[in-house]
Protein backbone atom coordinates (compact mmCIF):
# COMPACT_ATOMS: atom_id res chain seq x y z
CA UNK A 1 0.00 0.00 0.00
CA UNK A 2 2.85 2.33 0.83
CA UNK A 3 4.31 1.86 -2.59
CA UNK A 4 1.13 2.83 -4.31
CA UNK A 5 0.78 5.87 -2.09
CA UNK A 6 4.20 7.09 -3.03
CA UNK A 7 3.34 6.71 -6.66
CA UNK A 8 0.05 8.60 -6.51
CA UNK A 9 1.46 11.84 -5.19
CA UNK A 10 3.79 13.37 -7.70
CA UNK A 11 4.73 16.06 -5.26
CA UNK A 12 6.32 13.88 -2.64
CA UNK A 13 10.05 14.22 -2.38
CA UNK A 14 12.06 11.45 -3.89
CA UNK A 15 14.63 10.88 -1.20
CA UNK A 16 16.00 7.90 0.63
CA UNK A 17 13.69 6.40 3.18
CA UNK A 18 15.73 7.17 6.27
CA UNK A 19 17.21 10.59 6.90
CA UNK A 20 20.88 10.73 7.58
CA UNK A 21 20.77 12.69 10.80
CA UNK A 22 18.00 10.84 12.56
CA UNK A 23 17.44 7.12 12.19
CA UNK A 24 14.09 7.26 13.96
CA UNK A 25 12.47 9.26 11.18
CA UNK A 26 11.87 8.77 7.52
CA UNK A 27 10.23 10.67 4.75
CA UNK A 28 6.64 9.87 3.98
CA UNK A 29 4.39 11.00 1.16
CA UNK A 30 3.30 14.63 0.78
CA UNK A 31 6.24 16.10 2.60
CA UNK A 32 5.54 14.42 5.91
CA UNK A 33 8.04 12.79 8.21
CA UNK A 34 7.14 9.42 9.63
CA UNK A 35 7.86 7.96 13.02
CA UNK A 36 7.60 4.27 13.87
CA UNK A 37 4.72 2.95 15.93
CA UNK A 38 7.03 0.34 17.44
CA UNK A 39 5.17 -2.49 15.73
CA UNK A 40 6.73 -3.28 12.34
CA UNK A 41 3.52 -4.70 10.95
CA UNK A 42 1.47 -1.69 11.96
CA UNK A 43 4.00 0.57 10.26
CA UNK A 44 3.64 -1.43 7.09
CA UNK A 45 -0.13 -1.34 7.22
CA UNK A 46 -0.23 2.41 7.77
CA UNK A 47 2.25 3.03 4.97
CA UNK A 48 5.38 3.66 7.01
CA UNK A 49 4.30 4.82 10.41
CA UNK A 50 2.67 7.78 12.13
CA UNK A 51 3.37 11.14 10.46
CA UNK A 52 4.84 13.84 12.68
CA UNK A 53 2.25 16.33 13.77
CA UNK A 54 -0.57 13.83 13.81
CA UNK A 55 -2.97 12.82 16.51
CA UNK A 56 -3.52 9.09 16.86
CA UNK A 57 -6.57 7.87 18.73
CA UNK A 58 -6.97 4.32 19.92
CA UNK A 59 -10.37 3.12 21.02
CA UNK A 60 -9.97 0.73 23.91
CA UNK A 61 -11.72 -2.47 24.65
CA UNK A 62 -12.92 -1.73 28.16
CA UNK A 63 -12.54 -5.35 29.22
CA UNK A 64 -9.03 -5.97 28.00
CA UNK A 65 -5.81 -4.00 28.11
CA UNK A 66 -4.85 -4.50 24.49
CA UNK A 67 -4.31 -0.79 23.97
CA UNK A 68 -1.42 -1.08 26.40
CA UNK A 69 0.38 -3.31 23.91
CA UNK A 70 0.31 -0.50 21.39
CA UNK A 71 1.31 2.14 23.94
CA UNK A 72 4.19 0.06 25.33
CA UNK A 73 5.71 -0.61 21.95
CA UNK A 74 5.21 3.00 20.91
CA UNK A 75 6.98 4.35 23.98
CA UNK A 76 9.67 1.69 24.00
CA UNK A 77 10.55 2.56 20.43
CA UNK A 78 10.90 6.16 21.50
CA UNK A 79 13.22 5.22 24.37
CA UNK A 80 15.40 3.10 22.12
CA UNK A 81 15.73 6.00 19.71
CA UNK A 82 16.38 8.46 22.56
CA UNK A 83 13.42 10.64 21.75
CA UNK A 84 11.81 12.83 24.38
CA UNK A 85 8.68 11.23 25.79
CA UNK A 86 5.68 12.27 27.81
CA UNK A 87 3.35 9.75 29.37
CA UNK A 88 0.10 10.58 31.11
CA UNK A 89 -2.35 8.21 32.68
CA UNK A 90 -5.02 8.05 35.33
CA UNK A 91 -3.03 5.75 37.55
CA UNK A 92 -1.53 6.99 40.80
CA UNK A 93 1.99 6.16 39.82
CA UNK A 94 2.45 6.59 36.09
CA UNK A 95 6.19 5.96 36.41
CA UNK A 96 5.38 2.31 36.95
CA UNK A 97 4.39 2.11 33.30
CA UNK A 98 8.03 2.56 32.36
CA UNK A 99 8.92 -0.66 34.12
CA UNK A 100 6.61 -2.62 31.85
CA UNK A 101 8.18 -1.55 28.59
CA UNK A 102 9.43 -4.36 26.37
CA UNK A 103 13.00 -4.64 25.20
CA UNK A 104 14.13 -4.65 21.59
CA UNK A 105 14.94 -8.12 20.35
CA UNK A 106 18.33 -9.46 19.35
CA UNK A 107 20.95 -6.78 18.99
CA UNK A 108 23.50 -7.82 16.39
CA UNK A 109 25.74 -10.80 17.04
CA UNK A 110 23.73 -12.01 19.98
CA UNK A 111 23.20 -15.63 20.68
CA UNK A 112 19.56 -15.22 19.81
CA UNK A 113 20.43 -14.29 16.25
CA UNK A 114 19.41 -17.69 15.02
CA UNK A 115 16.01 -17.03 16.52
CA UNK A 116 15.61 -13.78 14.67
CA UNK A 117 16.86 -15.39 11.51
CA UNK A 118 14.25 -18.06 11.76
CA UNK A 119 11.71 -15.40 12.45
CA UNK A 120 12.67 -13.44 9.38
CA UNK A 121 12.03 -16.44 7.25
CA UNK A 122 8.71 -16.94 8.86
CA UNK A 123 7.66 -13.35 8.38
CA UNK A 124 8.78 -13.31 4.79
CA UNK A 125 6.82 -16.43 4.20
CA UNK A 126 3.79 -14.95 5.86
CA UNK A 127 3.90 -11.80 3.80
CA UNK A 128 4.40 -13.65 0.58
CA UNK A 129 1.23 -15.39 1.39
CA UNK A 130 -0.80 -12.36 2.38
CA UNK A 131 0.44 -9.36 0.51
CA UNK A 132 2.26 -10.57 -2.59
CA UNK A 133 5.88 -9.81 -3.34
CA UNK A 134 6.14 -6.09 -4.18
CA UNK A 135 5.07 -4.98 -0.71
CA UNK A 136 8.20 -6.23 0.96
CA UNK A 137 10.87 -4.24 -0.78
CA UNK A 138 9.96 -1.09 1.09
CA UNK A 139 12.07 -1.77 4.12
CA UNK A 140 14.51 -4.38 3.04
CA UNK A 141 17.58 -2.20 3.35
CA UNK A 142 19.58 -2.44 6.51
CA UNK A 143 18.29 0.78 7.96
CA UNK A 144 15.00 -0.77 8.89
CA UNK A 145 16.43 -2.03 12.15
CA UNK A 146 17.15 1.54 13.25
CA UNK A 147 13.76 2.87 12.30
CA UNK A 148 11.70 0.17 13.87
CA UNK A 149 12.61 -2.63 16.23
CA UNK A 150 10.94 -5.87 17.08
CA UNK A 151 10.12 -5.87 20.74
CA UNK A 152 10.34 -8.88 22.98
CA UNK A 153 7.35 -8.56 25.25
CA UNK A 154 8.79 -10.97 27.82
CA UNK A 155 12.01 -9.11 28.37
CA UNK A 156 11.92 -5.82 30.28
CA UNK A 157 13.80 -2.90 28.82
CA UNK A 158 17.42 -2.54 29.92
CA UNK A 159 18.22 0.10 32.49
CA UNK A 160 20.68 1.86 30.25
CA UNK A 161 17.90 2.95 27.91
CA UNK A 162 16.36 5.05 30.66
CA UNK A 163 19.54 6.81 31.61
CA UNK A 164 20.02 10.22 30.11
CA UNK A 165 16.58 10.16 28.62
CA UNK A 166 13.96 12.70 29.39
CA UNK A 167 10.77 10.86 30.13
CA UNK A 168 8.04 12.90 31.72
CA UNK A 169 5.22 11.23 33.55
CA UNK A 170 1.98 12.92 34.53
CA UNK A 171 -0.78 11.53 36.65
CA UNK A 172 -4.18 12.96 35.88
CA UNK A 173 -5.90 11.12 38.65
CA UNK A 174 -5.91 13.71 41.36
CA UNK A 175 -5.67 16.90 39.41
CA UNK A 176 -8.86 18.95 39.64
CA UNK A 177 -8.94 19.56 35.90
CA UNK A 178 -6.95 18.86 32.84
CA UNK A 179 -5.10 22.16 32.75
CA UNK A 180 -2.10 20.48 34.39
CA UNK A 181 -1.89 18.01 31.56
CA UNK A 182 -2.45 20.72 29.00
CA UNK A 183 0.35 22.82 30.43
CA UNK A 184 2.74 19.90 30.51
CA UNK A 185 1.90 19.00 26.91
CA UNK A 186 2.30 22.60 25.84
CA UNK A 187 5.68 22.84 27.56
CA UNK A 188 6.75 19.55 26.05
CA UNK A 189 5.67 20.47 22.53
CA UNK A 190 7.12 23.96 22.70
CA UNK A 191 10.58 22.42 22.85
CA UNK A 192 9.84 20.51 19.67
CA UNK A 193 8.32 23.27 17.61
CA UNK A 194 8.87 22.93 13.92
CA UNK A 195 11.32 25.13 12.13
CA UNK A 196 12.07 24.81 8.48
CA UNK A 197 14.01 21.85 7.27
CA UNK A 198 15.80 21.07 10.50
CA UNK A 199 14.39 18.21 12.50
CA UNK A 200 16.71 17.42 15.34
CA UNK A 201 14.46 15.12 17.29
CA UNK A 202 10.88 14.00 17.42
CA UNK A 203 8.79 13.61 20.53
CA UNK A 204 6.13 11.16 21.54
CA UNK A 205 3.21 11.80 23.84
CA UNK A 206 1.05 8.96 25.08
CA UNK A 207 -2.10 9.56 27.07
CA UNK A 208 -3.66 6.44 28.43
CA UNK A 209 -7.34 5.91 29.15
CA UNK A 210 -8.35 9.46 28.52
CA UNK A 211 -11.85 10.30 29.76
CA UNK A 212 -12.06 7.14 31.84
CA UNK A 213 -13.96 7.45 35.12
CA UNK A 214 -10.78 7.72 37.19
CA UNK A 215 -9.55 10.83 35.48
CA UNK A 216 -12.57 13.01 35.96
CA UNK A 217 -12.63 15.67 38.62
CA UNK A 218 -11.97 14.33 42.04
CA UNK A 219 -15.01 16.18 43.37
CA UNK A 220 -17.25 15.19 40.49
CA UNK A 221 -19.48 12.20 41.26
CA UNK A 222 -18.53 9.51 38.80
CA UNK A 223 -20.93 7.53 36.69
CA UNK A 224 -20.60 4.53 38.96
CA UNK A 225 -21.21 6.19 42.27
CA UNK A 226 -24.54 7.77 41.53
CA UNK A 227 -27.47 6.66 39.49
CA UNK A 228 -27.82 7.06 35.77
CA UNK A 229 -29.52 10.01 34.20
CA UNK A 230 -28.48 13.10 36.11
CA UNK A 231 -24.81 12.35 36.62
CA UNK A 232 -24.64 11.10 33.07
CA UNK A 233 -25.58 14.43 31.64
CA UNK A 234 -23.47 16.29 34.17
CA UNK A 235 -20.45 14.28 33.34
CA UNK A 236 -21.23 14.63 29.67
CA UNK A 237 -21.04 18.36 30.02
CA UNK A 238 -17.92 18.05 32.10
CA UNK A 239 -16.30 15.85 29.49
CA UNK A 240 -17.38 18.04 26.65
CA UNK A 241 -15.96 21.11 28.25
CA UNK A 242 -12.91 19.66 29.93
CA UNK A 243 -11.59 16.96 27.70
CA UNK A 244 -12.89 18.14 24.41
CA UNK A 245 -11.17 21.43 24.73
CA UNK A 246 -7.95 19.64 25.51
CA UNK A 247 -7.93 17.46 22.40
CA UNK A 248 -8.41 20.27 19.86
CA UNK A 249 -5.79 22.40 21.53
CA UNK A 250 -3.50 19.39 21.67
CA UNK A 251 -4.18 18.82 18.01
CA UNK A 252 -3.43 22.43 17.25
CA UNK A 253 -0.19 22.31 19.18
CA UNK A 254 1.04 19.05 17.74
CA UNK A 255 0.40 20.16 14.18
CA UNK A 256 3.09 22.75 14.49
CA UNK A 257 5.62 20.55 16.24
CA UNK A 258 7.67 17.45 15.57
CA UNK A 259 5.76 15.04 17.70
CA UNK A 260 3.11 12.37 17.60
CA UNK A 261 0.36 12.18 20.20
CA UNK A 262 -1.28 8.84 20.92
CA UNK A 263 -4.43 8.99 23.01
CA UNK A 264 -6.37 5.93 24.06
CA UNK A 265 -9.92 6.32 25.28
CA UNK A 266 -12.76 3.99 26.20
CA UNK A 267 -15.61 4.80 23.79
CA UNK A 268 -18.18 2.74 25.67
CA UNK A 269 -17.89 4.93 28.73
CA UNK A 270 -18.59 8.11 26.79
CA UNK A 271 -21.80 9.19 25.22
CA UNK A 272 -21.87 8.23 21.53
CA UNK A 273 -21.74 11.79 20.29
CA UNK A 274 -18.84 12.55 22.58
CA UNK A 275 -16.90 9.59 21.32
CA UNK A 276 -17.73 10.51 17.71
CA UNK A 277 -16.39 13.99 18.26
CA UNK A 278 -13.12 12.53 19.45
CA UNK A 279 -13.06 10.19 16.47
CA UNK A 280 -13.50 13.10 14.09
CA UNK A 281 -10.56 14.88 15.64
CA UNK A 282 -8.21 11.95 15.17
CA UNK A 283 -5.84 11.86 12.22
CA UNK A 284 -5.30 8.15 12.62
CA UNK A 285 -8.04 6.17 14.30
CA UNK A 286 -7.52 2.63 15.53
CA UNK A 287 -9.55 0.36 17.72
CA UNK A 288 -8.51 -2.77 19.56
CA UNK A 289 -10.75 -5.55 20.65
CA UNK A 290 -10.15 -8.69 22.64
CA UNK A 291 -11.59 -11.89 21.34
CA UNK A 292 -13.49 -14.19 23.63
CA UNK A 293 -11.75 -17.38 24.61
CA UNK A 294 -14.26 -19.91 23.47
CA UNK A 295 -16.10 -18.46 20.55
CA UNK A 296 -16.85 -21.57 18.56
CA UNK A 297 -18.28 -19.76 15.56
CA UNK A 298 -15.33 -17.47 15.15
CA UNK A 299 -12.95 -20.35 15.66
CA UNK A 300 -14.60 -22.18 12.84
CA UNK A 301 -14.54 -19.13 10.59
CA UNK A 302 -10.93 -18.04 10.93
CA UNK A 303 -7.66 -19.85 10.66
CA UNK A 304 -5.18 -19.51 13.46
CA UNK A 305 -7.86 -18.52 15.92
CA UNK A 306 -6.02 -20.15 18.81
CA UNK A 307 -3.00 -17.89 18.39
CA UNK A 308 -4.95 -14.65 18.25
CA UNK A 309 -5.09 -12.46 21.28
CA UNK A 310 -7.19 -9.75 19.76
CA UNK A 311 -8.24 -7.76 16.76
CA UNK A 312 -7.12 -4.36 15.62
CA UNK A 313 -9.23 -2.18 13.37
CA UNK A 314 -7.89 0.68 11.32
CA UNK A 315 -10.72 3.17 10.86
CA UNK A 316 -8.77 6.11 9.55
CA UNK A 317 -5.23 6.48 8.35
CA UNK A 318 -3.68 9.92 8.60
CA UNK A 319 -3.89 12.09 5.53
CA UNK A 320 -1.88 15.16 6.22
CA UNK A 321 -1.36 17.53 3.31
CA UNK A 322 -3.62 15.56 1.01
CA UNK A 323 -7.31 15.14 0.38
CA UNK A 324 -7.14 11.60 -0.92
CA UNK A 325 -8.31 9.05 1.61
CA UNK A 326 -6.13 6.07 2.31
CA UNK A 327 -8.00 2.95 1.33
CA UNK A 328 -6.43 -0.10 2.87
CA UNK A 329 -6.58 -3.62 1.54
CA UNK A 330 -8.15 -4.73 4.78
CA UNK A 331 -9.13 -2.81 7.86
CA UNK A 332 -9.25 -5.59 10.43
CA UNK A 333 -6.15 -7.45 11.48
CA UNK A 334 -5.55 -10.04 14.11
CA UNK A 335 -3.05 -9.40 16.88
CA UNK A 336 -0.89 -12.43 17.50
CA UNK A 337 2.07 -13.14 19.69
CA UNK A 338 4.76 -14.86 17.74
CA UNK A 339 6.68 -17.27 20.01
CA UNK A 340 4.86 -15.57 22.87
CA UNK A 341 7.29 -12.71 22.46
CA UNK A 342 6.75 -10.61 19.38
CA UNK A 343 3.67 -8.71 18.44
CA UNK A 344 2.52 -9.61 14.94
CA UNK A 345 -0.45 -8.28 13.01
CA UNK A 346 -1.92 -10.47 10.33
CA UNK A 347 -4.76 -10.32 7.88
CA UNK A 348 -7.78 -12.34 8.81
CA UNK A 349 -7.95 -15.48 6.79
CA UNK A 350 -11.06 -17.43 6.33
CA UNK A 351 -10.70 -21.01 7.38
CA UNK A 352 -10.86 -23.52 4.56
CA UNK A 353 -14.11 -25.41 4.55
CA UNK A 354 -13.51 -28.79 6.03
CA UNK A 355 -14.79 -31.47 3.68
CA UNK A 356 -15.11 -34.21 6.27
CA UNK A 357 -17.36 -32.29 8.63
CA UNK A 358 -19.95 -31.64 5.95
CA UNK A 359 -19.53 -28.29 4.24
CA UNK A 360 -22.26 -25.71 4.45
CA UNK A 361 -22.40 -25.63 0.69
CA UNK A 362 -23.36 -29.29 0.53
CA UNK A 363 -25.96 -29.23 3.25
CA UNK A 364 -27.69 -26.03 2.32
CA UNK A 365 -27.59 -26.70 -1.39
CA UNK A 366 -29.39 -29.26 -3.46
CA UNK A 367 -29.25 -31.90 -0.77
CA UNK A 368 -31.61 -30.16 1.58
CA UNK A 369 -34.67 -30.65 -0.54
CA UNK A 370 -34.06 -34.29 -1.19
CA UNK A 371 -33.17 -35.09 2.38
CA UNK A 372 -36.36 -33.51 3.62
CA UNK A 373 -38.34 -35.48 1.13
CA UNK A 374 -36.48 -38.51 2.34
CA UNK A 375 -37.49 -38.01 5.96
CA UNK A 376 -41.07 -37.40 4.94
CA UNK A 377 -41.16 -40.61 3.02
CA UNK A 378 -40.72 -42.66 6.12
Amino acid at each position, binding site marked *: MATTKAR*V*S*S*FSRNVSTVTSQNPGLKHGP*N*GTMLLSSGIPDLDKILGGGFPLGSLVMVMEDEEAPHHMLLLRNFMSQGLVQKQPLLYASASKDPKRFLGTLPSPASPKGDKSSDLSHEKDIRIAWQYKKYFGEPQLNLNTNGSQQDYCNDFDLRKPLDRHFYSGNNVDCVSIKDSP*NLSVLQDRCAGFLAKLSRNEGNISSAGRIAIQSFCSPQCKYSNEPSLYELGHSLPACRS*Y*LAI*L*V*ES*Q*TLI*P*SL*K*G*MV*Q*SSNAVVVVTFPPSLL*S*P*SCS*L*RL*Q*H*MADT*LLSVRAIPDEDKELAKLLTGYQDMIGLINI*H*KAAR*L*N*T*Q*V*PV*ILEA*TTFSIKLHKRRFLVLECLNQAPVDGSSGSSYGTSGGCSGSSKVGTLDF
Partner: protein
Amino acid sequence: MEQKNWNLLDEALGLHNNDNAKPWPLCGRFVLVEDCVDTSAAFVLHHILKRSFSSHPSSAVLLLAFSHPFSHYDRVLRKLGCNLTAQRDNGRLFFLPMLMFQCPGEGKPNHDGLASVFEQIERVITVLHQDKKSISIIIDDISFLEVAANGSSDDVLNLMHYCHTLTSEYGCAFIALDHKDIYLNGDRTAVILEMEYLAEILVKAEPLATGLAKDVHGQLMVLNKETQHQHGITAIKSYNFHFKIKETGIECFYPGTKIQ
Protein backbone atom coordinates in the same frame (compact mmCIF):
# COMPACT_ATOMS: atom_id res chain seq x y z
CA MET B 1 -14.50 32.43 -20.60
CA GLU B 2 -12.51 29.29 -21.16
CA GLN B 3 -14.18 25.95 -21.32
CA LYS B 4 -13.94 24.08 -18.08
CA ASN B 5 -14.44 20.48 -17.26
CA TRP B 6 -17.51 20.66 -15.13
CA ASN B 7 -18.30 17.61 -13.13
CA LEU B 8 -21.48 16.44 -11.47
CA LEU B 9 -20.67 18.28 -8.27
CA ASP B 10 -20.40 21.59 -10.12
CA GLU B 11 -23.66 20.86 -11.81
CA ALA B 12 -25.35 20.02 -8.51
CA LEU B 13 -24.03 23.16 -6.85
CA GLY B 14 -25.12 25.22 -9.86
CA LEU B 15 -21.60 26.37 -10.67
CA HIS B 16 -21.80 25.47 -14.34
CA ASN B 17 -24.43 27.97 -15.49
CA ASN B 18 -22.35 31.04 -15.16
CA ASP B 19 -24.17 32.97 -17.86
CA ASN B 20 -26.29 35.15 -15.59
CA ALA B 21 -25.02 38.35 -14.09
CA LYS B 22 -23.55 36.83 -10.95
CA PRO B 23 -19.79 36.63 -11.00
CA TRP B 24 -19.88 33.73 -8.56
CA PRO B 25 -22.96 31.50 -8.72
CA LEU B 26 -22.97 30.74 -4.99
CA CYS B 27 -23.37 34.44 -4.13
CA GLY B 28 -25.99 34.96 -1.49
CA ARG B 29 -26.36 31.28 -0.80
CA PHE B 30 -25.68 29.09 2.21
CA VAL B 31 -24.09 25.73 1.49
CA LEU B 32 -23.98 23.18 4.29
CA VAL B 33 -21.68 20.20 3.84
CA GLU B 34 -22.21 17.19 6.08
CA ASP B 35 -20.01 14.16 6.53
CA CYS B 36 -19.28 11.33 8.91
CA VAL B 37 -16.27 9.55 10.41
CA ASP B 38 -15.92 7.08 7.56
CA THR B 39 -16.20 9.61 4.75
CA SER B 40 -14.72 13.03 5.13
CA ALA B 41 -16.23 15.77 2.99
CA ALA B 42 -13.32 18.17 3.28
CA PHE B 43 -12.71 17.69 -0.43
CA VAL B 44 -15.98 19.51 -1.18
CA LEU B 45 -14.60 22.57 0.58
CA HIS B 46 -11.36 22.31 -1.38
CA HIS B 47 -13.34 22.05 -4.58
CA ILE B 48 -15.45 25.10 -3.80
CA LEU B 49 -12.34 27.00 -2.75
CA LYS B 50 -10.66 26.25 -6.04
CA ARG B 51 -13.74 27.05 -8.12
CA SER B 52 -14.33 30.33 -6.34
CA PHE B 53 -10.81 31.54 -7.10
CA SER B 54 -11.07 30.54 -10.73
CA SER B 55 -14.60 31.86 -11.21
CA HIS B 56 -13.85 35.54 -11.40
CA PRO B 57 -10.82 37.76 -10.78
CA SER B 58 -12.75 39.78 -8.22
CA SER B 59 -13.70 36.87 -5.98
CA ALA B 60 -12.30 36.61 -2.50
CA VAL B 61 -12.46 33.97 0.21
CA LEU B 62 -12.47 34.18 3.99
CA LEU B 63 -11.44 30.84 5.45
CA LEU B 64 -11.95 30.07 9.13
CA ALA B 65 -9.80 27.02 9.70
CA PHE B 66 -10.46 25.16 12.92
CA SER B 67 -9.18 21.76 11.89
CA HIS B 68 -6.03 22.20 9.80
CA PRO B 69 -3.08 24.57 9.58
CA PHE B 70 -2.49 26.73 6.52
CA SER B 71 0.25 24.45 5.22
CA HIS B 72 -2.26 21.64 4.83
CA TYR B 73 -4.66 23.69 2.70
CA ASP B 74 -1.76 25.14 0.77
CA ARG B 75 -0.42 21.74 -0.18
CA VAL B 76 -3.82 20.31 -1.02
CA LEU B 77 -4.87 23.26 -3.16
CA ARG B 78 -1.54 23.45 -4.91
CA LYS B 79 -2.12 19.97 -6.23
CA LEU B 80 -5.54 21.11 -7.39
CA GLY B 81 -3.87 23.89 -9.35
CA CYS B 82 -4.45 26.84 -7.06
CA ASN B 83 -1.74 28.69 -5.19
CA LEU B 84 -3.12 29.80 -1.84
CA THR B 85 0.01 31.63 -0.78
CA ALA B 86 -0.14 33.79 -3.87
CA GLN B 87 -3.86 34.39 -3.38
CA ARG B 88 -3.22 35.38 0.21
CA ASP B 89 -0.57 37.83 -0.87
CA ASN B 90 -2.91 39.23 -3.51
CA GLY B 91 -5.50 39.91 -0.86
CA ARG B 92 -7.96 37.41 -2.25
CA LEU B 93 -7.64 34.88 0.56
CA PHE B 94 -8.11 35.79 4.19
CA PHE B 95 -7.01 32.92 6.32
CA LEU B 96 -8.03 32.99 9.97
CA PRO B 97 -6.15 30.26 11.84
CA MET B 98 -8.53 29.18 14.59
CA LEU B 99 -6.80 26.00 15.70
CA MET B 100 -5.85 27.35 19.08
CA PHE B 101 -8.93 29.49 19.45
CA GLN B 102 -10.72 29.00 22.75
CA CYS B 103 -13.40 31.16 24.26
CA PRO B 104 -12.30 32.60 27.58
CA GLY B 105 -14.08 31.50 30.73
CA GLU B 106 -13.62 27.84 31.60
CA GLY B 107 -16.79 25.84 31.39
CA LYS B 108 -19.16 28.76 30.97
CA PRO B 109 -20.82 29.88 27.80
CA ASN B 110 -19.20 33.09 26.80
CA HIS B 111 -20.65 35.50 24.30
CA ASP B 112 -17.61 37.69 23.95
CA GLY B 113 -15.46 34.98 22.43
CA LEU B 114 -17.62 34.27 19.43
CA ALA B 115 -18.61 37.91 19.16
CA SER B 116 -14.99 38.77 18.57
CA VAL B 117 -14.87 36.12 15.86
CA PHE B 118 -17.86 37.64 14.15
CA GLU B 119 -16.39 41.12 14.43
CA GLN B 120 -13.29 39.81 12.70
CA ILE B 121 -15.40 38.31 9.94
CA GLU B 122 -17.48 41.45 9.51
CA ARG B 123 -14.45 43.69 9.40
CA VAL B 124 -12.94 41.70 6.56
CA ILE B 125 -16.26 41.52 4.72
CA THR B 126 -16.93 45.26 4.85
CA VAL B 127 -13.46 46.04 3.53
CA LEU B 128 -13.86 43.53 0.74
CA HIS B 129 -17.35 44.72 -0.05
CA GLN B 130 -16.10 48.23 -0.70
CA ASP B 131 -13.78 46.76 -3.32
CA LYS B 132 -16.82 45.23 -5.03
CA LYS B 133 -15.62 41.74 -4.52
CA SER B 134 -17.78 38.66 -4.42
CA ILE B 135 -16.95 36.99 -1.16
CA SER B 136 -17.18 33.44 0.16
CA ILE B 137 -17.00 32.62 3.84
CA ILE B 138 -15.85 29.06 4.51
CA ILE B 139 -15.92 27.44 7.97
CA ASP B 140 -14.00 24.20 8.55
CA ASP B 141 -15.61 22.93 10.69
CA ILE B 142 -18.53 23.66 13.01
CA SER B 143 -17.97 20.87 15.52
CA PHE B 144 -14.67 22.48 16.50
CA LEU B 145 -16.41 25.81 16.76
CA GLU B 146 -18.81 24.27 19.21
CA VAL B 147 -15.97 23.02 21.38
CA ALA B 148 -14.27 26.39 21.18
CA ALA B 149 -17.51 27.97 22.39
CA ASN B 150 -17.35 25.80 25.51
CA GLY B 151 -20.08 23.54 24.24
CA SER B 152 -22.70 26.25 23.98
CA SER B 153 -24.75 25.43 20.91
CA ASP B 154 -26.78 28.64 21.29
CA ASP B 155 -23.71 30.76 20.74
CA VAL B 156 -22.76 28.72 17.72
CA LEU B 157 -26.24 29.07 16.28
CA ASN B 158 -26.13 32.80 16.84
CA LEU B 159 -22.88 33.02 14.94
CA MET B 160 -24.36 30.94 12.14
CA HIS B 161 -27.37 33.23 11.95
CA TYR B 162 -25.19 36.30 11.84
CA CYS B 163 -23.08 34.80 9.10
CA HIS B 164 -26.26 33.90 7.29
CA THR B 165 -27.42 37.50 7.40
CA LEU B 166 -24.20 38.45 5.66
CA THR B 167 -25.31 36.41 2.67
CA SER B 168 -28.26 38.70 2.11
CA GLU B 169 -26.64 41.89 3.29
CA TYR B 170 -23.44 41.71 1.31
CA GLY B 171 -24.24 38.89 -1.10
CA CYS B 172 -21.62 36.61 0.37
CA ALA B 173 -21.57 32.92 -0.15
CA PHE B 174 -21.48 31.01 3.13
CA ILE B 175 -20.10 27.49 3.17
CA ALA B 176 -19.83 25.41 6.32
CA LEU B 177 -18.77 21.87 7.08
CA ASP B 178 -20.25 19.85 9.91
CA HIS B 179 -20.20 16.26 11.05
CA LYS B 180 -23.68 14.87 10.93
CA ASP B 181 -23.09 11.66 12.87
CA ILE B 182 -22.25 13.54 16.06
CA TYR B 183 -25.85 14.65 16.36
CA LEU B 184 -27.59 11.49 15.24
CA ASN B 185 -28.26 9.99 18.63
CA GLY B 186 -30.42 12.81 19.88
CA ASP B 187 -27.81 14.91 21.63
CA ARG B 188 -28.09 18.62 20.91
CA THR B 189 -29.77 18.22 17.57
CA ALA B 190 -30.76 21.89 17.46
CA VAL B 191 -27.58 22.97 15.72
CA ILE B 192 -27.77 20.56 12.85
CA LEU B 193 -31.52 20.87 12.38
CA GLU B 194 -31.49 24.64 12.24
CA MET B 195 -28.52 24.67 9.93
CA GLU B 196 -30.17 22.20 7.60
CA TYR B 197 -33.24 24.39 7.56
CA LEU B 198 -31.25 27.50 6.77
CA ALA B 199 -29.11 25.87 4.12
CA GLU B 200 -30.05 26.43 0.52
CA ILE B 201 -27.72 23.77 -0.74
CA LEU B 202 -27.16 20.69 1.35
CA VAL B 203 -24.29 18.36 0.48
CA LYS B 204 -24.14 15.03 2.29
CA ALA B 205 -21.18 12.69 2.00
CA GLU B 206 -21.70 9.09 2.99
CA PRO B 207 -19.73 5.89 2.65
CA LEU B 208 -20.97 3.28 0.26
CA ALA B 209 -23.50 0.95 1.78
CA THR B 210 -21.41 -1.94 0.53
CA GLY B 211 -18.30 -0.82 2.33
CA LEU B 212 -15.06 0.74 1.24
CA ALA B 213 -13.85 0.28 -2.30
CA LYS B 214 -10.67 1.33 -4.00
CA ASP B 215 -12.22 3.11 -6.96
CA VAL B 216 -15.33 4.54 -5.30
CA HIS B 217 -14.70 6.55 -2.16
CA GLY B 218 -18.27 7.31 -1.27
CA GLN B 219 -21.48 8.89 -2.39
CA LEU B 220 -22.69 12.45 -2.37
CA MET B 221 -26.24 13.63 -2.08
CA VAL B 222 -26.83 17.25 -3.01
CA LEU B 223 -30.13 18.96 -2.27
CA ASN B 224 -30.42 22.25 -4.08
CA LYS B 225 -33.37 24.31 -2.86
CA GLU B 226 -33.80 26.86 -5.60
CA THR B 227 -35.55 29.68 -3.88
CA GLN B 228 -36.08 32.08 -6.73
CA HIS B 229 -38.22 30.04 -8.98
CA GLN B 230 -40.16 31.80 -11.69
CA HIS B 231 -43.58 30.87 -10.33
CA GLY B 232 -42.65 31.54 -6.75
CA ILE B 233 -42.55 27.85 -5.99
CA THR B 234 -39.50 26.48 -4.28
CA ALA B 235 -38.23 23.60 -6.29
CA ILE B 236 -35.87 21.12 -4.74
CA LYS B 237 -33.45 19.41 -7.03
CA SER B 238 -31.64 16.43 -5.70
CA TYR B 239 -28.58 14.76 -7.12
CA ASN B 240 -27.06 11.46 -6.14
CA PHE B 241 -23.75 10.29 -7.38
CA HIS B 242 -20.57 8.50 -6.42
CA PHE B 243 -17.19 10.10 -6.20
CA LYS B 244 -13.54 9.25 -6.23
CA ILE B 245 -11.05 11.68 -4.75
CA LYS B 246 -7.75 12.21 -6.48
CA GLU B 247 -4.88 14.53 -5.74
CA THR B 248 -5.68 16.69 -8.73
CA GLY B 249 -9.42 16.82 -8.40
CA ILE B 250 -12.45 14.69 -7.91
CA GLU B 251 -14.18 12.33 -10.22
CA CYS B 252 -17.96 12.20 -10.02
CA PHE B 253 -20.11 9.64 -11.74
CA TYR B 254 -23.52 8.10 -11.48
CA PRO B 255 -23.61 4.69 -9.77
CA GLY B 256 -22.47 2.00 -12.12
CA THR B 257 -21.34 4.27 -14.93
CA LYS B 258 -17.66 4.49 -14.15
CA ILE B 259 -15.53 3.69 -17.16
CA GLN B 260 -12.07 2.49 -16.27
